[in-house]
């Protein structure tokens, strides 16, 4: 009598059941000329800077799916804890889920220790998780916050390496943004100066990189206060043509005026209807 194979208790977490099937499908599909759908990425410009009293984080708001803009106004600055925020570049789902998991873990940790969470803790948790998955989780993050030891800024790469620096940029537009930082960064800037610098760095990424675009989001974190400014600046407005006469409504009205189509002839046929039966059905409103 045939016996069923006894199932072991299934583990949670990632399931690799379909990997072989997927690789076979991919090779078959490429033979026919059809391509497998790609994950939504946030080809991005994100950056952060340490100023006198805290941190300014900045991000653009475009999410791409191959060569198409998937989301014109996505939010890339994720909440980790009341005093720590994290910008995410790379695969959109990966950054979203990773930051949410770390946020939950930090909250549990803070409840268990009874203290405000530190940025170094979040950094350590993120790098250990990303290293565990050997770079298959495509999340490049800029982590910044203010804790009891002052303001801290980290950049975290998908394979799990981290850097602690006074100014960092990540994403496809990182080179453009870094150029702005390298030119104008000074230690101990004021808040307005730092916000202007981050705005200019993200704008450099938006205008010079195809993967970044739309608006500029800023997040200013100081001791005891967080300013989440979304959007700080709308660098690309939809429907307004750049550089033509101001004050003239350039977005067309696509409705046609009455009389655009000429009426050639008009025939009216009155329909003779006779009343056959009239009944009243009362509604049951009890």
């Amino acid at each position, binding site marked *: 009598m*045939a*016996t069923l194979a*006894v199932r072991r208790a*299934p583990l949670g977490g990632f399931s690799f059941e379909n990997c*072989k099937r997927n*690789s076979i499908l991919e090779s078959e599909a490429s033979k026919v000329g059809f391509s497998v759908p790609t994950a939504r990425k946030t080809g991005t410009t994100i950056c952060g800077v340490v100023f006198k009293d805290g941190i300014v984080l900045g991000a653009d708001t475009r999410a791409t799916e191959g060569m198409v803009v998937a989301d014109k106004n996505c939010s890339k600055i994720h909440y980790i804890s009341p005093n720590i925020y994290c910008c995410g570049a790379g695969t959109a789902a990966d950054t979203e889920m990773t930051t949410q998991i770390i946020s939950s*873990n930090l909250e549990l940790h803070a409840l268990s220790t009874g203290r405000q969470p530190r940025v170094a803790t979040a950094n350590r948790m993120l790098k250990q998780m990303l290293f565990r998955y050997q770079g298959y989780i495509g999340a490049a993050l800029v982590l910044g916050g203010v804790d009891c030891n002052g303001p801290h800024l980290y950049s975290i790469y998908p394979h799990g390496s981290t850097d602690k620096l006074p100014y960092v940029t990540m994403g496809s537009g990182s080179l453009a943004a870094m150029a702005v930082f390298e030119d104008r960064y000074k230690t101990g800037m004021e808040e307005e100066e730092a916000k202007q610098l981050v705005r200019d760095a993200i704008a450099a990424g938006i205008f010079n990189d195809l993967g970044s675009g739309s608006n500029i989001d800023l997040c200013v974190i100081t001791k005891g206060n967080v300013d989440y400014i979304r959007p700080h600046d709308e660098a690309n407005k939809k429907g307004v043509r750049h550089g033509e006469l101001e004050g003239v409504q350039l977005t067309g009205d696509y409705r046609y005026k009455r009389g655009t189509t000429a009426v050639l002839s008009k025939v009216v046929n009155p329909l003779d209807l006779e009343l056959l039966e009239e009944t009243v059905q009362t509604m049951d409103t009890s």
Partner: protein
Amino acid sequence: IVPVAGLCPQGSYGIQDSLRSGFTSVKNELLPSHPLELSEKNFVLNQDKMNFSTLRNIQGLHAPLKLQMEYRAARQIQRLPFLQSSNLALDTLRGSDDTIGFEDILSDPAQSETMGEPHMMVEYKLGLL
């Protein structure tokens, strides 16, 4: 890429499930389907081993020995073989009761669509099979 035993056909009746795992080939049975598959399968085990060996180096032999005894006891507190147990005592001992990871969010075993055949699994557990 090191070939590993234990990746034999995983469909029911011990036969290769062609729809999910593709056609049978020696390569399929020996090599893992994803580089992370093996490391993920053994992650908790390896983490425990590492923690125990660190503890042994710091505090001597008795500490990990006693803890392992407690782990063994906690592992025996289970529901019936085909039901999902919470493993609360084991989680508390390990310290993973106040952490959350992908294993809690993705493919939660408590919500899997399939269930082991109850009679088979109880017989297997009791050694009657």
